[in-house]
C-alpha cells in the first residue's frame, strides 16, 4: 500500500515576509479600490451603478424570468371556468402536502363530472417546487410570478379556490373541455 500521508511543508517565510507589510499594503489597496467604487456609485451614478451589487429591495425588484417558479395558482379558460377537474394528482405529488382538496360531482354536466368543491393551498407549506404544475394533466395549475406572501397569522396563508383563481387568471386554450371534449 502506498503511503497515504503526505506531509505538506509549511511555506518558509523570509525575514521580510515575516513582517507582513507587503501583503498588508496590497490588501489595503484592494479594499480601498472597492470602497471608492461604491462611493462613486452612491454619489454620482446611482441610476446605473457599477460596483454596488446590493438590490434595494422594496424599490428595486428582480424582474422574474419566464421560468420563475413562484406561488402555485389555478387558471381558468377563456370562459372563466376553472380548468381543474379535482383529479388530486397535484395533491398526491406535492412533497410537503400543501394542497388539500374536496372533490365533488357536477350534477348537470355530462362532459366534466368532477370539480373541486374546495381547493386549498397552504402557502406556508408550499416549497415552490413546481411538481404540481408538472403533474397536472389538465394544465390547470401554474406557478406564477408571485413570491411576496406575507401575513401576520397562519390562517391567511391558506389560499382558497377563489384566491387561487384570481392569482392564476385566464389562460387561453385551444381545448375547452366543457364544450368539446
Amino acid at each position: 500500500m502506498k503511503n497515504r500521508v503526505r506531509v505538506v511543508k509549511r511555506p518558509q517565510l523570509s525575514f521580510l515576509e515575516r513582517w507582513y507589510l507587503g501583503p498588508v499594503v496590497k490588501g489595503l489597496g484592494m479594499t480601498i479600490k472597492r470602497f471608492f467604487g461604491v462611493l462613486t456609485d452612491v454619489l454620482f451614478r446611482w441610476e446605473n451603478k457599477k460596483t454596488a451589487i446590493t438590490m434595494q429591495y422594496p424599490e428595486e425588484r428582480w424582474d422574474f424570468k419566464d421560468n420563475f417558479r413562484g406561488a402555485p395558482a389555478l387558471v381558468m379558460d377563456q370562459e372563466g371556468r376553472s380548468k381543474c377537474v379535482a383529479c388530486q394528482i397535484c395533491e398526491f405529488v406535492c412533497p410537503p402536502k400543501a394542497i388539500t382538496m374536496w372533490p365533488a360531482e357536477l350534477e348537470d354536466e355530462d362532459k366534466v363530472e368532477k370539480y373541486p368543491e374546495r381547493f386549498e393551498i397552504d402557502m406556508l407549506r408550499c416549497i415552490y417546487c413546481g411538481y404540481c404544475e408538472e403533474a397536472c394533466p389538465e394544465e390547470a395549475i401554474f406557478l406564477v410570478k408571485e413570491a411576496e406572501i406575507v401575513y401576520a397569522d397562519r390562517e391567511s396563508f391558506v389560499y382558497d379556490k377563489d384566491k387561487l383563481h384570481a392569482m392564476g387568471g385566464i389562460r387561453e386554450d385551444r381545448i375547452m373541455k366543457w364544450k368539446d371534449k
Partner: protein
Amino acid sequence: MSTNGKTVNVTIDGKQVTVPAGTNIIEAARHVNTEVPHYCYHPRLSVVGNCRICLVEIEGWPKLQIGCNTNVSDGMTVFTASDKVREAREGVMELLLINHPLDCTICDQAGECKLQDYAVDHGTGLTRFAFDKQKKPKNVSWGDKVVFDAERCILCTRCVRFLDELCGTDEIGIDFRGEKVSLIVRDDGQLTSPYQMNIIDLCPVGALTSRDFRFKSRVWFMQFANTLCTGCARGCNVVAGAREERLLRMVPRFNAQVNDHWMCDEGRLNYTFVNDEDRLVAPRVNGKDVPYDDALARAAAILQKAKEGGGGAADIAVLGCASPFMTNEELFSFAGLLDALGVTERRFAIPMGEGDDMLLHPEKAPNARGARLFGFQDAPVDAERDWDVVVHFAARDGGGLPDDLNAKSRIVFSLQVDKNADVNFPLTTSFEKDGTVISAGDRLQRVSKALTFAPSHLTERVVLDRLRGLIEDGYQGTDTAALALARIAQEHAAFEGLTWTGIGLQGVSLQLAEAEVGA
C-alpha cells in the same frame, strides 16, 4: 370441462408444468407465475373470448390463440411473450384505446385499472387514429348504486355475464352495432339485483363506478386492510379502504371457502356507522367525559360490590350481556371477568334479518357462534327481575337488552352515548381492531384494523383485562389480539394449536361440537 383426474404436461415460456386436463392457458400460466393479460376472462364466468388481449403463441399452430378459450393439451409449448405475441397485444391495445376518452384524471378506477396497467405493460403509448373519437353517453345512472360510462366500456361483457349467469337476473344487454355498440339495462334502466355492485369490481376498466364511493378518494391515497364484512354471519372476506381515518369502501376479497369473489350490496354499503360524527370517543361516568383511569376505577368499584355480594347469588343480581359483534378475544376476556365475579347470568341477542341462497345470512352479526362458545346464552333476559349490576356490550344499533330492564348500576360499552349508563365505555367497530370471529360454517376468520379510532383509545379487550386486574389480584391481560388468541388456544379445546398467523388471511374451519355452538 371435466378433468377426470387426468393431468397434462405443458411448457410455458420454457418452464415445465403439470396441470389438470381441461385447464385453459391463462390458468396454466398462473402455475408458473406468468400473467397472461386478460379483460373478458373471469374464472367464475363463461368464456366469451371477445377482448383478444390474451393472445398467445403455441408451437406448431399457425395463428395466435386466445389463452382464455384454449385448453392446454399434453406436450403443448406456449409462448406468452414472444415477439409475435407482443406485436399482437400492441395492436389489440391500440384498438381498445381508439375511442377511449382518456378520462383517467377523473376516473375512480385510475390506479387499479387494467387498461392503464396493460397500456403501460403492453401498449405502444401511441395512437395512429387521427379522426374524431366516437362519442357515447357518459355518467349514466343505472340505479342508485352503479354509474355507467359508455365511452370507457371495452365491451368485455363481464357485467352482462355476471348478472345473467350468477345472479340470474339478466338485466344488462348489448345494444346497437359497430362503433355505436353500447350497453343497455332492461326495463326502466335501473339495476335491481342485490348483488349488482359486484359488476363494479368485475369491470376491468372504469366504465362501472360506485355511486357510493364516487369521487370520495383516489385509490392511491387510501390504506387497505384485509378484513371481513361484519354485516352478517357469513363473514365475507373484504379489503377495507380508509383515508385519513375514515372508512370509504369495501370490496370483496377472494376466499373460495366463504364468499368466492363476491359480496352482497347490503354488506358493502354497511360501513357508514364507522364514520359517524356522534360516536362515543371517551369514557363517561355519570354523563361526564373522564379519563380512562377514573372510569376504570368507578367500574371496578361497582363490580367489587357485586363480587362481595356473591355475584349471581340471590342477594345481588348481576347480569353480563355480550354482543355477537364482539371478537372471540373480547368474549374470552369478558367471560374471564364474569368468572372472577362469579356471575352466572350471561346473555346475548342475535339481530335477525333476511337471508338468501347466495351469500346473505339471516343472522345480522358476525360472531354469534363465538358468543355461544364462550358461554353466553342466546336467551331472553328476565325483565321482571330487579338487577343490581348490568354489564352490557351494546349491539351496533345500541340494542340487546329490553328497554324497560330494571337495573341499579349499568356499565355499558356502546357506539353512541348511553344516557342510562353509570359508566359508559366507547365501543370500537370491527374495522378498528384486530381479532377473530367464528363465521357461518364454523369458520374462524380474522378481522383487522383498517383505521385508528380516537388516538388514546383503549380497546374493549384491554378495558376488560384491566377491570379484571383491579378486582382479581395479580391478573395480567395480554397486549395484542394474537397473544390473547394464544391464551384462548390453551384453554379451549376447539382452538387447540391455532395461532394468529396460522389462521392466515383465509381463515380455518373449526371442528365444533353441535352442543358448543348451538344450532
